[in-house]
């Protein structure tokens, strides 16, 4: 999966310009505004709590997760066969199925479909895949107006920013900032920030775009092998508006979105919205099967590194992801550092597993941007063991030489010291002596990052092992 071009923010609070500096630096910038970091943290925690309440309503919740995990494992083991079945069934109902090996091929296919029909006005509903492929700039450079119609995506589109969250694209933006943005872009009243008023303005603006559109492009939440349908879930209805009016519908999907049977949706759809936003189901869950009368439906299947990922253990399990975003909402680090601190199309825990698959160098900091608390794995509807995969990535990165040398050597030295009981005891005695004798200010500086906001522990006069020995085991 090729890395997206990361755009510089045109508005305050947006992304920083320049190459990605790694998660620690980006996160430190985000937390520098403590109030805003807390605001972002609270906003996403609220979504996590809604998920909990929704999950609690289903006595079979954990069993559903187990089934979803099994369904995905089964599908991934038989991906080729199911994709062929999907193609056969979709084609039988009049859809045209295209195959793209990488992002460039995907972009070319989409553009050619549009160019051949003279399309210059395209409306798009949410698709992280098209973000991954950098579709919007590709089309815009070739004279196509691309309007992202999901409200959150339209907001970040106006700001020339990528989405900061895969389900809640504008979660990092305050309503006053959206109000100012809409004042500039849509002519809403200056200073207005009421979400209803702003949404109404967007409704009117986007309705014009829907009515004028010559083609509609959607993502795909699930592609069903045994029917050939593509399923798209939205709350706003923008995928339906965008595809019901213009004659051409292009649906873009990663290969891993295939599910074997329509009935499998009974499992996934009971998990998806509850995990993503705490709703029982999205407002619109549309099963597109073939084009509408007089229209066309083109489905673009995209590999872009997915078939290669299938070969890697344990990271192949990340292909089970149904893009619900629950891992982001529950991650205490994501909540306090924001989606832009990851430098990837898909951020957060799943993004930290998928990102390094694109090339470990650019994303080496991501698997370490975690305390391995494991909360992500416990909310993942398809039970991806994200925390174990992050740890596995750390090993791969260290062995590949991508971890910082200083840290690696320090730990290696520590391991050598710890390998011998007397070296361990001696080192401990020296450390406690230093803590006791050196001036607090100096110790704090020596302690580096630890000492900036934390006191060091007060040194005990003797270690437990010394105490145990001195008291003959009766301390």
């Amino acid at each position, binding site marked *: 999966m090729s890395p997206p071009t990361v755009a510089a923010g045109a508005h305050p609070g947006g992304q920083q310009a320049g190459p990605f500096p790694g998660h620690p630096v980006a996160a430190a910038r985000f937390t520098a505004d403590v109030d805003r970091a807390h605001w972002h943290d609270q906003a996403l925690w609220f979504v996590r709590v809604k998920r909990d309440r929704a999950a609690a309503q289903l006595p079979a919740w954990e069993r559903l997760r187990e089934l979803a995990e099994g369904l995905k494992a089964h599908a991934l083991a038989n991906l080729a066969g199911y994709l062929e079945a999907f193609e056969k069934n979709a084609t039988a109902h009049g859809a045209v199925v295209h195959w793209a090996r990488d992002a460039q091929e995907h972009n070319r296919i989409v553009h050619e479909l549009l160019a051949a029909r003279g399309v210059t006005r395209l409306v798009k509903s949410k698709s992280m895949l098209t973000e991954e492929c950098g579709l919007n700039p590709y089309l815009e450079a070739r004279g196509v107006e691309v309007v992202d119609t999901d409200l959150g995506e339209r907001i970040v589109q106006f700001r020339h920013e990528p989405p900061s969250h895969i389900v809640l694209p504008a979660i990092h933006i305050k309503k006053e900032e959206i109000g100012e943005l809409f004042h500039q872009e849509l002519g809403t009243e200056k200073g207005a920030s009421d979400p209803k008023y702003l949404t109404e303005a967007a409704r009117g603006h986007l309705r014009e775009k829907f009515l004028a559109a010559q083609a509609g492009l959607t993502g795909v939440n699930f592609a069903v092998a045994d029917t050939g349908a593509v399923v798209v879930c939205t*709350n706003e*209805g923008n995928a339906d508006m965008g595809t019901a*009016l213009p004659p051409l519908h292009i649906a873009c999907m990663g290969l891993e979105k295939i599910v074997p049977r329509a009935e499998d949706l009974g499992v996934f759809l009971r998990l998806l919205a509850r995990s993503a936003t705490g709703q*029982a*189901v999205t*407002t619109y869950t549309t099963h597109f*099967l*073939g084009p509408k009368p007089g229209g066309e439906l083109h489905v673009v*299947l995209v590999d872009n590194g997915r078939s290669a990922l299938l070969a890697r253990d344990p990271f192949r399990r990340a292909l089970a992801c149904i893009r619900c975003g629950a891992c982001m909402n529950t991650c205490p680090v994501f909540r306090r550092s924001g989606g832009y601190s990851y430098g990837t199309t898909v951020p957060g825990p799943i993004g930290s597993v998928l990102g390094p698959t694109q090339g470990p160098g650019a994303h080496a900091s991501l698997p370490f941007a975690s305390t391995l608390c494991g909360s992500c794995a416990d909310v993942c509807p398809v039970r991806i063991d994200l925390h174990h995969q992050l740890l596995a990535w750390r090993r791969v990165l260290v062995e590949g030489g991508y971890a910082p040398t200083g840290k690696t050597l320090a730990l290696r030295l520590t391991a050598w010291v710890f390998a011998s009981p007397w070296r361990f005891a001696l080192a401990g005695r020296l450390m406690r002596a230093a803590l006791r004798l050196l001036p607090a200010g100096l110790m704090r500086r020596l302690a580096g990052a630890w000492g900036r906001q934390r006191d060091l522990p007060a040194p005990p006069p003797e270690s437990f092992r010394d105490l145990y020995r001195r008291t003959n085991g009766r301390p």
Partner: protein
Amino acid sequence: MAARDEILAALRRNAPSGPPHPGYAGVAAAFPDLLAQFALSVAAVGGTLVRVPDLAAADAALRALPIHAQARRVASLVPGVGAVTVDATAVTDPHALADLDLVVLRAALAVAENGACWIEGPGLPHHALVVIPEHVAVVVDAAAVVPDLQAAYAALDLPGRPRWGLFLAGPSKTADIEQSLVIGAHGARSATVFLVG
């Protein structure tokens, strides 16, 4: 074809071993009062539920609502329900439906666990009808309410009788501005479900 062959070959080459299809055992929802649960779920998705004994009563109840009284352009796919001013089947270009105030749709089934109604292609002249009008009314038989989506898919038998369709759960909504829920994003501003029988 080159891309297709390459991709399929790579997928076959790299395929891990995996379990057989796990089936769906152990997840069926069970509600002591199916219709009461459906009512709760419809409310939870921002819709309004109206129980009526038959279609005539649905028509009467609909006409009594402000969304109908104030509507100038009304389409209906349920004969006998709604004072129709637009014949949707006669419209060839869905753009012409843009100023519809209200549409009455028929749902083949509905789901108690989440308040969704299944509206499908056969019998629906334009997909746009589910999303373009200002208000939506859905008519569904009480006997067609199933406990959960698992039961819904089993009943729909989509592979056996393929057709496009959607689950519609309440009015259009968004929370993209600071997580404030706003009803009526791009689609209908309200959804009223008439549960018949």
